């Protein structure tokens, strides 16, 4: 019996010791030989994982370019549900959020952002021909259409702000859930990023179309940043320095990210800074 108890003890110690993660900062963690953990969801073409878990999508490409500029070449990936990204980094499940998150006030309270890596808008995805004539939130309310979007998306906040009632909203897990709901006809219209909607339009062979993003309310134009834990200020600052270098000479970055549709039009204007987005968005 003693032996038995001992082996239990050993087992429990092993289980807990592999896992106890110290509360060290990211800089210290990397020095200790830990790999940097990129956290993102499945949002083609923003950020998603390949068959072997490799980081794909333009946000990942930009982040990797900057990390290489910083001399960090090794990383591993953690794929979350969208709604789990910020709780995940705060629970020390990842070190950087490269999902392509808009810099919003509510998010700034829970996570630090890098300087903007691009400026993006939202759009609606509707069945081909747009039978209900929906181009923005006001149209959704007017037609009583069922609006699908992702849990934890900025669009939930936006839809509420523009007065879409809860009864017309359908919340699903991420981009995958959105397209599934649209394909199956469970929802009439989806609201998501312009890029995400474009991807869905292409993927379904024109079964759906993207509405003109200019018809969306102007304030839905947002800047995207890379997310860091509140405690990793030093690392974030170093990242920003490297990011500035990359942005000053963006050819390499544009080539890598360009494969996923990111182009010069997305380069963030200096007027839209992280501080600005954190205080107004």
């Amino acid at each position, binding site marked *: 019996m003693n032996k038995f108890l001992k082996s239990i003890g050993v087992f429990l110690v092993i289980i807990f010791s592999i896992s106890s993660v110290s509360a060290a900062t990211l800089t210290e963690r990397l020095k200790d030989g830990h790999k940097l953990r990129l956290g993102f969801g499945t949002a083609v073409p923003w950020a998603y994982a390949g068959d072997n878990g490799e980081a794909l999508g333009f946000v990942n490409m930009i982040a990797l370019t900057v990390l290489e500029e910083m001399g960090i070449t090794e990383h591993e990936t953690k794929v979350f*549900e*969208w*709604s*789990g990204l*910020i*709780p995940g980094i*705060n*629970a020390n499940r990842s070190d950087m959020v490269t999902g392509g998150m808009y810099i919003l006030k*509510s*998010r700034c*309270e*829970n*996570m630090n952002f890098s300087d903007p890596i691009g400026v993006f808008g939202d759009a609606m995805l509707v069945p081909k021909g747009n039978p209900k004539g929906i181009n923005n939130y006001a149209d959704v309310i007017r037609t009583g259409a069922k609006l699908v979007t992702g*849990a*934890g998306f900025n669009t*939930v*906040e936006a839809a509420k702000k523009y007065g879409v009632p809860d009864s017309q909203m*359908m*919340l*699903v*897990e991420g981009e995958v*859930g959105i397209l*599934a*709901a649209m*394909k*199956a*006809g*469970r929802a009439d219209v989806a609201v998501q990023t312009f890029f995400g909607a474009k991807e869905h339009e292409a993927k379904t062979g024109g079964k759906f179309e993207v509405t003109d993003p200019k018809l969306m309310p102007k304030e839905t134009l947002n800047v995207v940043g890379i997310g860091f834990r509140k405690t990793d200020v030093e690392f974030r600052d170093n990242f920003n320095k490297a990011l500035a270098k990359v942005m000053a000479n963006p050819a390499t970055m544009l080539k890598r990210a360009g494969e996923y549709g990111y182009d010069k039009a997305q380069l963030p204007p200096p007027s839209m800074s992280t501080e600005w987005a954190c205080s107004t968005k």
Partner: protein
Amino acid sequence: MNAEWKWDFTFQILPQMLWATLNTIMAAGIGYAIATIVGLLFLLGQRTPIKIVNMINREIVEFIRSTPLLIQLFFVYFVLPQFGITLSAWVCGMITIGLHFGTYLSEVYRGALEGVPKTQWEACRALNFTNFYTYRRIVLPQAFPIAIPGMGNYLVGIFKDTPLLSTIGVAELFHAATAVGGYHYRYLEPYTIVGIIFLILSVPAAMGIRKLEKSVNKAQGKVKY
């Protein structure tokens, strides 16, 4: 986000969570109702005298029972629309839960029927009762009490599996917690509240079922242990 429990946040989200609890209870209730009927169908398939039906029935039950409910949900939710069958997330969830737990309930029914002593059947045959009469008046009244505890256990079981429905977007309690957690970027309070609500609902239910089980055993003249 820090580890501190925020009471104002708790009270802010509590009404929403309690509403969602109603959905959870409803999901468990409807899913269970379907499962009891599906269970009967599987039982019928098992007891028909046609061998090939028995065999197919057994394989289906075996397959459903040995694969995860989570993937079954994904399968029904994502694949059926490809064949032109589009059901809402709710309906998908209810069908899948009904099928999954129907296989378990058919076992409970079978056990209960087998729990009725053979002599009862023989006596009925000797008295020349019709099959229907035998089931209705003699066998089922005896089998039902035996089935009650097992049926109760699976009711609680379904209740505890309802959080899986959130993965296909059914707006039950766990979905509400994830949505509210994703909106406010805090999981501490929502998930803890979910745990407490589950505890409050399922522990008394489980205790009640155990009591029922004891009284059934006593009524049957069986004393456990």
